[in-house]
């Protein structure tokens, strides 16, 4: 149902907008409408064009938006022809009526004038989500992207050009908060935004409604494939959906964004006790570049569900689900698919000793070394090769390490972290050792700093 109304009000018949009045109005139709919807904020820029019939002299244009979520402070009107003959004198929000603005226009001409009306509204959102399907050998993945547009704005937008913006816009006030203010710019000595908006939380019912709509959108499935034109603007990416769409209030629409048949992927398994406890966590990594059959545009953030093809008939097995961050062109992404049990890393402290004690003449201990010998077993039980990263964090900056066995690539990550990277063939084990010496008290003086470019053990 349409709730936005625009009317040319004949000036002579209006007693006062504040009181009982008799209006004689003409209702110009909306010719075109464009929606630019942001994914990082509940924000949509609406641009609509209408043809007004102005008379010579003073005209009043009344715009009302009952039961919608329009921010009245964002209302703007621009004549698209004869701009030099049309003077928009002011925009007045009359007293004691809500959701109504009146443009006072002085026109030196009479006749039809195309105008563009823009405003910001809340309640239109979009989000991206992805489906990944790994091949049997898990070397490549079919990656399908989708966008879901949801309209809870209270207004039906018919035959609208829909544009989606990827990027993190900085806004001060929630548009929904501004839309609900009793006075568009508040009152003197009362902030109308910024501080006030922090306290505002979206209505739970509304949020629930959005969730329901989002979930319902899955059932809609693909409604005809449309091309999405992607282009960069400032720090944003703009996706323009081909043609026009009607998104009635309360409805969602799902559209395919892209479909890449074979993205080369690396299965990376990570072990880091401080972050993942005693679990091995699986990551799927690839880069948004040409080598990976991607790289034309950044990909917006969303969730990805990853499956694996398990047989020639294309039956699937669920592998995991992950958040998918915004990936610039050229950047690598790691999708955390959660802990696994089929790749094992088991560090064992094999020996502990202390040495090199320093004593003060009064007999107290002033320094010593601690030596720990660790054995690390790495096991790949899968039928495909895997790559494993083992990170070890030390609680001190004063350490030396000696490595042994099949430890793969070694890197000192920062002042208290090292990383071993191993590649294991299917169903194989590897074992490596390291001896960690830490220096304490006055023994720190015996420690020699690693050079800035050193990546190997001392």
């Amino acid at each position, binding site marked *: 149902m349409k709730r936005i109304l625009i009317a040319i009000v004949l000036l002579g018949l209006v007693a006062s907008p*504040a*009181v009982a009045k008799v209006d004689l109005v003409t209702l110009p139709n909306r010719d075109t409408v*464009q929606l*630019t919807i942001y994914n990082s904020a509940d924000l949509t*820029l609406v*641009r609509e064009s209408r043809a007004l019939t102005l008379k010579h002299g003073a005209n009043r244009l009344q715009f009302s938006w009952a039961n919608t979520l329009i921010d009245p402070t964002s209302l*703007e009107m621009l004549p698209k022809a004869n701009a030099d003959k049309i003077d928009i004198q*002011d*925009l*007045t*929000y*009359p*007293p004691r009526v809500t959701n109504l603005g009146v443009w006072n226009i002085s026109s030196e001409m009479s006749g039809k004038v195309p105008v563009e009306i823009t405003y*910001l509204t809340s309640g239109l959102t979009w989000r991206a989500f992805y489906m990944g399907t790994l091949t049997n050998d898990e070397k490549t993945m079919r990656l399908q992207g989708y966008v879901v547009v949801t309209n809870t704005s209270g207004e039906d937008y018919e035959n609208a050009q829909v*544009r989606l913006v990827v*990027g*993190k*816009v*900085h806004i*001060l006030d929630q548009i929904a908060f501004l839309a609900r203010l009793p*006075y*568009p*710019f*508040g*009152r*003197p*000595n009362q902030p109308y935004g*910024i501080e006030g908006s922090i306290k505002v939380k979206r209505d739970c019912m509304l949020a629930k409604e959005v969730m329901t709509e989002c979930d319902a959108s899955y059932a809609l499935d693909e409604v005809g494939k449309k091309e999405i034109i992607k282009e960069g*603007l*400032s*720090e*944003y990416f*703009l996706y323009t959906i081909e043609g026009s769409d009607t998104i009635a209030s309360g409805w969602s629409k799902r559209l395919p964004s892209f479909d890449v048949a074979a993205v080369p992927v690396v299965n990376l398994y990570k072990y880091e006790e401080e972050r993942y406890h005693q679990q091995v966590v699986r990551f799927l990594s690839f880069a948004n*570049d040409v080598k990976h059959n991607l790289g034309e545009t*950044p990909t917006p953030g969303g969730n990805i569900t990853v499956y694996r093809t398990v047989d020639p008939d294309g039956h699937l097995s669920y592998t995991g689900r992950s*958040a*998918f*961050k915004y990936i*610039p*062109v*050229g*950047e690598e*992404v790691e*999708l955390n698919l959660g802990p696994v049990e089929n790749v094992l890393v088991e560090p064992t402290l094999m020996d502990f000793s202390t040495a090199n004690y320093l004593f*003060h003449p009064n007999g107290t201990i*002033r320094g010593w070394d601690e030596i720990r010998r660790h054995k690390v077993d790495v096991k790949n039980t899968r039928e495909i090769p895997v790559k494993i990263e083992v990170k070890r964090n030390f*609680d*001190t*900056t004063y350490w030396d390490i000696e490595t042994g066995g099949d430890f793969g690539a070694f890197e000192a990550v*920062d*002042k208290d972290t090292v990383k071993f990277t191993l590649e294991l063939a299917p169903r194989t084990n590897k074992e490596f050792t390291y001896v960690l010496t830490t220096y*304490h*008290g*006055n023994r*720190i*003086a015996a*420690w020699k*700093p*690693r050079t*800035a470019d050193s990546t190997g053990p001392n």
Partner: protein
Amino acid sequence: MNARPAMALLAAVACLIGAGLAEARIKLVALPERAATIVRLDNARATLVEEERVLTLHKGLNKVDFSWNGVSIDVDSIRLRVLGHPNDVTLLNVSYPPNEAALVWEIHCKDAVEERVRISYLLSSIDRLIAYKGVADKDERNLALRSFIILRNFSGEDFDNAHVLVDYGEAFDRGILHEETKQLLFFKREAVPITKVWTFDASKLPWDPGDLENRNVGIPVSYRIKNDAASTLGEFALWGGKARVFQDDGHGSTIMLGEDVSPLVPVGEAMELYIGDSRDIVVTQRKMREQAINERKTTGGTTVLYDMDEVIAAKIENFKDTPAVLTMIQHIPGEWRMVDCNLKYTRKDASTLEFEITLPARDKNGPATVELNMHYVRLNLRGAPPNKH
């Protein structure tokens, strides 16, 4: 009709006013119309209203009653100025009737005369806001800047027509009713040069995006607008207000880039509007060394003073297909000395270093990468160093 308190000016002959000011007053009066009203909004804390009226005064003593029921006037701010015959018309005194928002001027007049007077007072709950709208061109070099003034009248008084003044720009005539808000275009400039600024502040943003489990770190992006003649501005200070910034999309439409609030910007200074975050520039910063050196000890062997030898390594990657200049802010607290730094910096204050790092666009091989390596020593730290058991 809506019954609402309003201001009234009542001119009356003394004998027609009731027995005493302290009691109920009966008034039979002429009601002089407002001749001109000026609303002056040049001070954000109070609005000054000046109104001119013509009083019909008779020879001798006149009493003029001014009341403002339901309107919030600073009573001590009310002034009356005689404009027509200042030598013949004399304001003798001002009386305040009890329990009323009113005052009575006693005016002596040499002859019967129609006299123009100006009454001024500070009125609450009527003010103005400033808002900006900017539309950047597609190349982000210039901004079409417009400034709006928003009048808000919740004073209880209707102003059918007022001459509205602010401290710069042209005055304008507008009526504004009680509880009405009015937005007017104040000034516009078609092509104000802008500089785009990316800023990484090491004290505010995460150092290693790899630790964030697949979440982005946004590098704040701002537009800088200089308030000077070269920018077609510079005539007056730009008042503080909310700014919404859009960009021409090259297809006859715009997208919204972001919004920010600017404080007052004096002539010669720059307005900086933070519009959003870039996720196409990635900074990975790590501390590679933190070593206590030059320890000074008591005779008992306890360390009481030491220096800390530190190495910071930062990798800055530009994934954009356009070049960018990143302002990187590093902080070294206390007393310190730089040992080696591979990039040039400006020391902004005792503990703040600012690097301006030019990043080329990405190429077919991947992102453009610049590395910062900073080796410094923090001096004369007291007590025992960390990690010392």
